[in-house]
């Protein structure tokens, strides 16, 4: 699992209600880092992820991996899918087997790996997603959050260089979101590049190394605090400004927070604030 650079260049794809969903979208996934892909419902986040994964060939533009263009041939797609995996939002769109372990084995078996290797990868993926205890349970008895993690394990077992997740935290409660993020952190330590789509700006600010906003058929990419502090862009994208940036900026102006980068979540903000009045000026 070495780092590879996945990119979209001038991608045109998808039609909805007579308009192009993506119309010249370019994005470079920073290798070895965490990218949050933000956008309102219907903005084209999912379309872009599907293009990047090879599931949807763009009408125009190209998808590249380390600069080499992806061609929608059988061999081209096969090689691409070994490097890039997309986990869909609804786990039921990806889980077809009644047995958790068998479902996770599907990808590695398709790669034509020998049996022991498949077993090892299944065990590893279940471990990384903290779902090893579910291996013997039928898929249909799992909760939504458990199914989501098993679906991610199915992609992880492919050992992709780039793992993309469509709204992995949607429908999960705070604890489950925490667990999912922890699993993603373990994955990144295991040398993966991770892309997550979401419309939760607070989550993106907290989690991502870099963010990309899908807006008006294109993509605006940059550091989280810069992009998510751009009110004009956020308004166009129908997104809110993360509260931590708004509140942090004011507190900085009030001299309560040190200059420089703003805290990205409540814990960091509280840690950076003085405990008693009048300590800082």
């Amino acid at each position, binding site marked *: 699992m070495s780092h590879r650079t996945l990119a979209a260049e001038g991608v045109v794809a998808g039609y909805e209600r007579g308009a192009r969903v993506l119309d010249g979208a370019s994005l470079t996934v920073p290798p070895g880092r965490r990218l949050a892909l933000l956008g309102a419902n219907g903005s084209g986040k999912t379309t872009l992820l599907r293009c990047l*994964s*090879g*599931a949807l060939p763009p009408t125009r533009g190209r998808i590249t991996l380390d600069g080499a263009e992806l061609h929608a041939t*059988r061999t081209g797609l*096969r090689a691409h*899918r*070994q490097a890039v*995996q*997309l986990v*869909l939002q*609804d786990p*039921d*769109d*990806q*889980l*077809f*087997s*009644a*047995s958790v*372990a*068998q*479902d996770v*084995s*599907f*990808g*590695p*078996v*398709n*790669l034509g790996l020998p*049996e022991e290797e*498949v*077993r090892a990868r*299944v065990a590893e993926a279940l471990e990384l997603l903290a779902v090893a205890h579910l291996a*013997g*349970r*039928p*898929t*249909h*008895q799992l909760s939504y959050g458990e199914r989501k993690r098993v679906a991610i394990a*199915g*992609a992880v077992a*492919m050992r992709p260089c780039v793992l993309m997740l469509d709204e992995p935290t949607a429908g999960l409660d705070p604890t489950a979101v925490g667990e999912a993020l922890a699993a993603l952190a373990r994955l990144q330590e295991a040398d993966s590049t991770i892309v997550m789509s979401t419309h939760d700006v607070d989550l993106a600010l907290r989690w991502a190394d870099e963010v990309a906003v899908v807006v008006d058929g294109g993509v605006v990419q940059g550091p989280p605090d810069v992009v998510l502090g751009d009110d004009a862009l956020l308004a166009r994208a129908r997104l809110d400004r993360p509260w931590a940036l708004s509140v942090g900026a004011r507190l900085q102006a009030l001299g309560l927070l040190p200059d420089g980068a703003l805290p990205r979540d409540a814990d960091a903000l509280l840690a950076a604030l003085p405990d008693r009045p009048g300590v800082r000026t």
Partner: protein
Amino acid sequence: MTGLAIDDAAWASAWRLRSPADKLLLSGGLVLAALVLPAWPGSVLVGLAAVVLALGPARVPARTFGRAVRVPLAFILIGALTAVVQVGDGGLGWAPDAATQAGGLVAHAVAGSAAVLLLATTTPMSDLLPALHRLRVPDAVVEVASVTYRMLFVLLTSLSTIREAQAARMGHAGIRNSYRSSGMLAAAVLTRSWDRARRLSDGLAGRGMETGLRVLPEVLPSSPRFVASTLAGLAALVTVSALA
């Protein structure tokens, strides 16, 4: 909540990790014994064996087993009763040996049903389907059946949720409403099934599906002791029935 009680029992059974072939041998043997041995004492012993094995070593909840055995009972009783009523010139009457005949029919059917249920409550469908492959059923058919098994739970959940939503808006108050709603319900579940299939095929393409739904087979080794006890037990059943 839309779990099927028999399926839940199968996944939770103490025999879940026994070889499906072993369990198939046991239940199949009992089913055949229930069918071919005389009702007394053959069927009765088969029925007892199935119940004792299920509730004992396989630890199937008695409630689940009891309820499931009751399912075919209405058919069995009405069918047996109909079989032994005689249509003569003077109208209806009892057949000459009605009680024996009806008793035999009920015994065969109840014992056979219990023996099938022993398999059903200890062996998940997904363990049995690969066995079809060994019976030379084409892979494509086994895979279609596996998808059916996975998807029926998704659709059952949709069915009960949509029905509940309809009931909340009075969709099942009165026969007229109920028919109209049931038609919509069936249509909604049918379109849902198509949508699901399309999305699942997209999802699996991303995981490298090219020719089929191949997965790592689960290894559930056969137990020589279980097989030996099964054969001994079945032999004992046959012997006792032959001597009686």
